[in-house]
């Protein structure tokens, strides 16, 4: 007698969904004697790698520099990050001798000045969009920043 095989389509679908969701290329799932393996050829996963011409290994020109040097990459995705909304030079204090506007650990209230971005000799006071605690400062005083660079975390 043929062995009756009870396929559990929901399990496979669930794995396929996980595969899509997690952008994996293969899942193998085994419980006791049951083992399910799902795969997907993800051109997406291959193409971007294969399509980004980079200066060749032999490139002898200086490597491209990004002007921003964030202290920590992990923190850049923090939801409380306040980014530079313009290109310029960031100042953390109102003058060369003055104390900084804020320091890590400070509690700030909405509308309080956090830092200045100078662009074309104009000092733009950047104010806190919300109240909170200063968790991290990415930049040094007088550092050049580009659009979108993370400056400070307030949460």
């Amino acid at each position, binding site marked *: 007698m043929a062995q009756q095989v009870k396929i559990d389509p929901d399990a496979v679908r669930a794995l396929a969904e996980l595969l899509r969701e997690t952008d994996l290329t293969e899942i193998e799932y085994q419980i006791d004697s049951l083992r399910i393996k799902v795969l997907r050829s993800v051109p997406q996963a291959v*193409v*971007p790698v294969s*399509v*980004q011409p980079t*200066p060749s290994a032999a490139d002898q020109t200086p490597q491209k520099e990004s002007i921003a040097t964030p202290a920590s990459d992990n923190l850049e995705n923090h939801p409380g990050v306040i980014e530079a909304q313009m*290109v310029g030079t960031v100042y953390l204090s109102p003058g060369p001798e003055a104390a900084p506007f804020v320091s890590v650990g400070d509690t700030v209230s909405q509308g309080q000045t956090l830092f200045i971005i100078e662009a074309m000799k104009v000092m733009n006071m950047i104010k806190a969009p919300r109240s909170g605690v200063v968790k991290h400062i990415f930049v040094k005083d007088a550092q050049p920043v*580009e*659009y*979108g660079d993370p400056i400070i975390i307030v949460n």
Partner: protein
Amino acid sequence: MIKKILIANRGEIALRILRACKDLGISTVAVHSTADADAMYVRLADESVCVGPPSPRESYLNIPAIISAACITGADAIHPGFGFLSENATFAHMVEEHGLTFIGPKAEHIAMMGDKIMAKKTVARLGLPTVPGSEGAVTRLEKAIATADEIGYPVLIKAAGGGGGRGMKVAHSKDEFVQAYETARREAGISFGNDRVYLEKYLANPRHIEFQVIVDQFGNAVHLGERDCSLQRRNQKVWEEAPSTVLTPEFRDKFGRKIAKSMSELGYLGVGTLEFLYENGELFFIEMNTRIQVEHPITEMISGVDLIREQILVAAGEKLSFTQDDIIFRGHAIECRINAENSDTFMPSAGKISNYHCPGGPGVRVDSALFDGCKIPPYYDSLIAKLIIYARNREQCLARLRRALNEYVIEGVDTLIPLHLRLANNEDVIKAHFDIHFLERIAEKEN
């Protein structure tokens, strides 16, 4: 000498300028919007600065951001490319005020040629032929009607603040004139914040012929011959050739020298293009572009002059390295603008490039910032590549163009390659029988 140039542009022209800088040993700063962070010109630049979000107004047209980017990176000059800020006199002025070199003409000449009435008056004063028309703006309807009668119909009503084919109306008869005039003024007011319009004879079947000039700070001016850019669609050039088939070498030499002399008299600086309409053996000035143009490579191919290199050198204060007599035109060149557009509907097409493969071999030049996997964002001009073909004569150039178009593979977006193949095989194009309305006529015929 200039040591570091900020390139205030994107796409293929940013890469073209970057290549000229590298050839000169000059460092490069690329600016980009967030949409262009992975672009080829950004990757190949020595430094790059993100200047804003995708919207051009907030990034490539954002003057404070661009000047700040130059300051924080220590650039000593800015190259504006074409489009964006390249013909913005205020920008040119501000760049100079910040102690940076603007790689282009003086702000006053940008402003002068930006006003189409002033431009026409200026070149007429310098002795160059212009299209018969009103002397300057016509602000009263009665005067306008009288002038139109004098010029003879059909008459073109053009906005003083327009350009590139925008802000124009044709009146074919006196009956049509009043409404066309009023509409043109109203539209000009809305579009350009300036409702001044002027009148010109409307030429029925003209060719678009333009002359390339370059002038140094010592008043040395050289013309580099002409380009025929008659194949246009909605006044946007699609296919350009150099030399034109309608000018004789003697005419070219005489007329070109006259243009160069007048630019020297004007005190113009850098590269510039004087655009003319050609009909029945005559050229009529229409406008001047005070910047490098999209189609500059075909002039490079036949003259042997690297225009962007020379543009940078004269901006840096160097003397032109050649005289008019050094320029010997050789062969024929055609440029096809490969836009990311549907070849039939001309609908722009954004997307991700796949299977990119560009043609090669003798006489084939590709100016493009494309690479396999790059994204064509929907925010900017649709020009993504220029295929430039050179050969000993026009016939060989066309044969080579067909070959190269068949080799060119761009997938992921629609392109104008199919249109260019149709053109390269069209009998009238093969005979160089065309005018500025040709492309629209064949588009109508096909539909």
